[in-house]
């Protein structure tokens, strides 16, 4: 080792070269989005690293799940049985209501809502990058995950798939600053847009006139507009409405219903095949036309 007589390019030249590379990368990745496919490959390339980084946490959860006393297990079991009974009762009601709804919808000759396919996923890791709210899940292209797929937990909408790798993929959360989701107020059907604020417990609603009837405590559900998220899933609850007349629009903040800061299990919804959803519509139209 003799760094004094080191041959090769000087640090300054190296720095300039490397900075040019960075600027080119940033430009092509951000402005042109030309790395989408390459990102998928890179994602799968580094996923062993992610699985290994996740190992300590997995061990901890494994330990905490295995070291449980019998009493706790029995109590938990009891709770599950009770809630299962409730859910069964609701299911019975639901099937009747669904049938009725389908019949009414077919009478009105509007398209019947198809079944939504669901896939179970577990969280792998949360990004430590404070500028973006993303999490990694253990499902990828092998399981049929696609870009833009909606993700939810047991309470409400969590986000959508951003990048798909082979065995893992990245979910952008609704609280990310670059994310927005079309919603409507469940109470009266007013349509709003919920944009992420970069803070985990706050969504911002821009361009809402003062005259609109939005109150604190209103539940906002997905409106199904935009075609990304299916209709009717809870998104957030309004926590603040400030009607300052000196401003052009009302200031409205809401808090996500889903527990975004303690995610563990999630559901991926997938659209059913278009052939399936259109077939009842076309047959119905024909029958309507005949009658």
């Amino acid at each position, binding site marked *: *080792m003799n*760094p004094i007589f080191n041959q090769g390019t000087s640090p300054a030249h*190296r720095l300039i070269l*490397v900075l040019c590379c960075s600027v080119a990368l*940033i430009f092509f*990745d951000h402005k042109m989005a030309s790395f989408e496919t390459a990102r998928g490959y890179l994602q799968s390339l580094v996923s062993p690293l992610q699985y290994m*980084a996740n190992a300590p946490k997995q061990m901890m959860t494994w330990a905490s799940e295995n070291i449980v006393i019998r009493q706790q297990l029995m109590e938990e079991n009891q709770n599950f049985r009770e809630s299962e009974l409730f859910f069964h009762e609701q299911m019975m009601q639901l099937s009747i209501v669904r049938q009725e709804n389908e019949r009414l919808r077919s009478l009105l000759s509007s398209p019947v809502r198809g079944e939504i396919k669901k896939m179970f996923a577990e969280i792998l890791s949360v990004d430590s990058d404070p500028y973006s709210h993303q999490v990694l899940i253990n499902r990828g292209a092998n399981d049929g995950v696609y870009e833009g797929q909606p993700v939810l937990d047991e309470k409400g909408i969590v986000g959508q798939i951003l990048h798909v790798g082979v065995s893992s993929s990245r979910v952008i959360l609704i609280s990310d600053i670059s994310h927005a989701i079309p919603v409507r107020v469940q109470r009266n059907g007013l349509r709003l847009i919920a944009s992420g604020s970069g803070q985990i417990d706050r969504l911002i609603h821009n361009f809402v006139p003062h005259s609109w009837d939005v109150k604190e405590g209103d539940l906002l559900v997905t409106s199904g507009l935009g075609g990304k998220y299916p209709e009717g899933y809870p998104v957030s609850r309004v926590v603040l409405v400030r009607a300052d007349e000196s401003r052009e629009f009302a200031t409205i903040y809401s808090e996500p219903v889903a527990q975004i800061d303690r995610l563990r299990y999630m559901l991926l919804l997938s659209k059913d095949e278009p052939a399936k959803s259109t077939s009842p519509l076309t047959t119905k139209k024909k029958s309507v036309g005949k009658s």
Partner: protein
Amino acid sequence: MFSNNGFIILLTLLIALMASITPMPLSVDAFRPDWVLIVLVYWCLALPNKVNIFTAWVMGFILDVLLGSVLGVHACAMALSVYIVVVNFQKIRNFSVWQQALIIGVLSAQYHLVVFWLQRFLSDVVFLPNYLYPVITAIVLWPWMFLLLRRVRRHFRIE
């Protein structure tokens, strides 16, 4: 880099990469030190002929992929911070460990500010003071990392 126990350098860098993405509770996560930067700075001070700006850039690039940020952001910031070390490595080497720790603090702050500026330039993120909490942990961590990595270097006789 791969000859003469360069493999160990790569291994320490990989462990640093893993440490920077392991899941942590939110309150601890704000204080997560820049493991990759600290390890890179040590190797740059100890073996500037083996670890250079290119290594730093590649590590930053992998960090970009791991964190899902716009490709090139962390790579750029990492290269800039390591450049300062590479240019001044003979001065920094002669400082005491605590003085070095302060320099690491400055480098870490610079790294985070560059990342913030680039992100600010790309999307409208707002600055929160807790983006700079890792600077504190980096300063506290440096002496221990220095001793640990020096022991690793001497044990494996990496030259």
